[in-house]
């Protein structure tokens, strides 16, 4: 094998690795939105802002208490659960009960909540870009493999692998939680048919609090995991809300395994697109896939049957 070919192979493999690792993180961001979508049939457009709050929690835990960003997941997760549940209870639920001219009122409300959160953050933390200077931020494990007599050197980013691992654990736990526990079954029942669930004696109102809390907690965890490799500023939420939305649609509105797959697909598409098409069109590639899925697979990549 010539050096040229092995160079190309190395590039391809490295791109797949980067895309996959990033996709793991995207999955976690998408999971929360997908869960909320599944149960409450609304898109939470404050999703990215909730992540931003968790990122600040992580940032301050590190700055003030020297807490490792990965440990602070343990703080961000419950904190965001409470915040999410409170938002649902005191803000969204009252609006959902009112018959309104626009059925999208709740969605508009989440946009408003997002704006308030990002502007509060702006007020409290200023527009500064902050990053957490952990020693392992740019650490990588190098793996030298030899293929056909040519050695390839692949690098695996340590913080991205840790994030991927934790995302995997959280995703799997969520799946088990929904499949095996009573509360999980109640959430699924509410997602399938809210009225029937209520008739079966499920307190659907409480279920929506739990769901919104859980969805927020998941994106909160994703935020904490993102801090070591990225940075945080008050307006960070918007692009990530968009990504979560694409993932949710890719996965098929509310489908949990679908959201995981959607995240990985988006991560890979962005990575491959930026190498083989153009880095400038990275975001456009995500949207092209999004539109294609909407046209040809309206129920998402894992969707089956018709509505």
């Amino acid at each position, binding site marked *: 094998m010539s050096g040229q070919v092995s160079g190309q192979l190395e590039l391809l493999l490295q791109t797949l690795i980067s895309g996959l690792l990033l996709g793991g993180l995207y999955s976690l961001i998408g999971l929360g939105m997908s869960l909320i979508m599944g149960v409450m049939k609304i898109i939470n457009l404050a999703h990215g802002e909730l992540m931003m709050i968790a990122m600040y929690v992580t940032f301050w835990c590190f700055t003030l208490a020297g807490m490792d960003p990965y440990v602070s997941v343990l703080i961000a997760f419950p904190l965001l659960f409470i915040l999410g549940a409170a938002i649902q209870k005191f803000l969204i639920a009252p609006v959902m009960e009112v018959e309104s001219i626009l059925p999208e009122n709740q969605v508009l409300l989440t946009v408003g909540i997002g704006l308030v959160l990002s502007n509060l953050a702006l007020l409290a933390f200023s*527009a500064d870009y902050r990053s957490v200077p952990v020693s392992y931020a*740019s650490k990588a494990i190098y793996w030298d493999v030899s293929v056909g007599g040519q050695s390839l050197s692949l690098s695996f980013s340590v913080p991205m692998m840790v994030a991927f691992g934790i995302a995997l654990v959280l995703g799997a736990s969520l799946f088990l939680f929904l499949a095996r526990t009573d509360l999980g079954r109640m959430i699924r029942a509410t997602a399938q048919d809210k009225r029937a669930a209520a008739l079966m004696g499920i307190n659907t109102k409480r279920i929506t609090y739990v769901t919104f809390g859980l969805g927020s907690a998941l994106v909160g965890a994703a935020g904490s995991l993102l801090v070591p490799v990225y940075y945080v500023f008050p307006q960070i939420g918007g692009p990530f809300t968009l990504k979560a939305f694409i993932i949710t649609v890719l996965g098929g509105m509310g489908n949990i395994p679908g959201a995981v797959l959607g995240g990985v697909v988006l991560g890979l598409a962005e990575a491959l697109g930026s190498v083989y098409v153009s880095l400038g069109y990275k975001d456009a590639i995500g949207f092209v896939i999004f539109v294609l899925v909407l046209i040809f697979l309206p129920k998402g990549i894992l969707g089956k049957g018709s509505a």
Partner: protein
Amino acid sequence: MKTRRLIMVIALLLVAPLLFVPPAAAQDKTFTVGISLPLTGAEAKFGEMKKAAYEMAAAEINAKGGAKGYRIVYDIQDSGAKPETATSIVEKFITINKYPLIVGEYTSQCSYAVAGVAEKYKVPYLVDTGAADKITQQGWKYVYRLNPPSSLYGAGLFTFFEEVAKPQSIALLYENTDFGTSTSKAMQVWCEKKGIKVVLSEGYQAGAVDFKPILQKVKSLRPDIVYMVSYLMDASLLMRQSKELDINPKAFVGGAAGFTLPEFLENAADASEYVMSATLWTPQVKYPGAKEFAENYQKKTGKAPSYHGAEAYATTYVIADVLKRTKSLSAEDLRAALAATDMMTAFGPVKFTAFDQFTNQNSMDTLVLQVIKKKYETVWPKSAASGEFVFPFPRWRDRK
């Protein structure tokens, strides 16, 4: 009798307005200048630095009695680096507030948008950071620029490449904005002229989480130089991820902007070491007042200023100079006075001339800086150097 009284009345009426004209040197006169700046959002760091520098300079001038008796007052509004917001802010400045002079903005996109508005309303606009070539290539009469255009940012780098680095190949990564594209284009054109192989020229969208795929491509092409044109956070991430992927060109070189801010050192941490960048100004330049400005700025904000601060600071002194020379405060007279500017500032000489395709354009020498032991040192040209350059860079794995 009647005619006499009439004449008296007319005479009084003629004299009366003169009595109400305030004395020429009264201290309570103010001259308000409208400034649109990004104070929130991705470019807020640059906006904050410029704001602090504008206010510092205005306070200094006002403390010395102002310019020709006028206190300089700034009306600073936040554009969030959005051209549409900048446009409406400046429209308001001109049509409602009736400010006869506009300065400010940070990104090239915003500066270009504001320039269009100023030209439309025939109000002079002094650009002091927006660097895309096209801003002063439109033949606009009311648009003046203090900073050199981006195609000349690299002038210092070019001589460094020619005399020291002598690269065979170069990879260009740039943010696909007006500034990024035009700065990178200038480098590309120069390299092609000099026979340096451009192995990659890739624009990217700001705010990406993961540059690794494209950096991996850079790695596989093994260029001598990696040249990047980025704002702050992208610059930090590019360097962190280059370190992670163990990319070892002879030098990483930035095209000013994000690579010159103190925050770059904080965010990129040890990945910023040895990184070089083109720059227009450093605290070590020999212009009168530069050192004092840098010291005072450091004292006031706790951070060292980059060229962005020096631009804003110098702009204020240009305004003071214009006020001293202008015939009146009408937009037309201010423009004429601005056009005739020929002075020295802490940022360098300011004189607006026409050359190549530019009009009303200031020009100056540019420098090269390098991060050495977590500090910015001016390393090129030799005459302005404050430190010895390190070239080629040691490999990442060989650093302690």
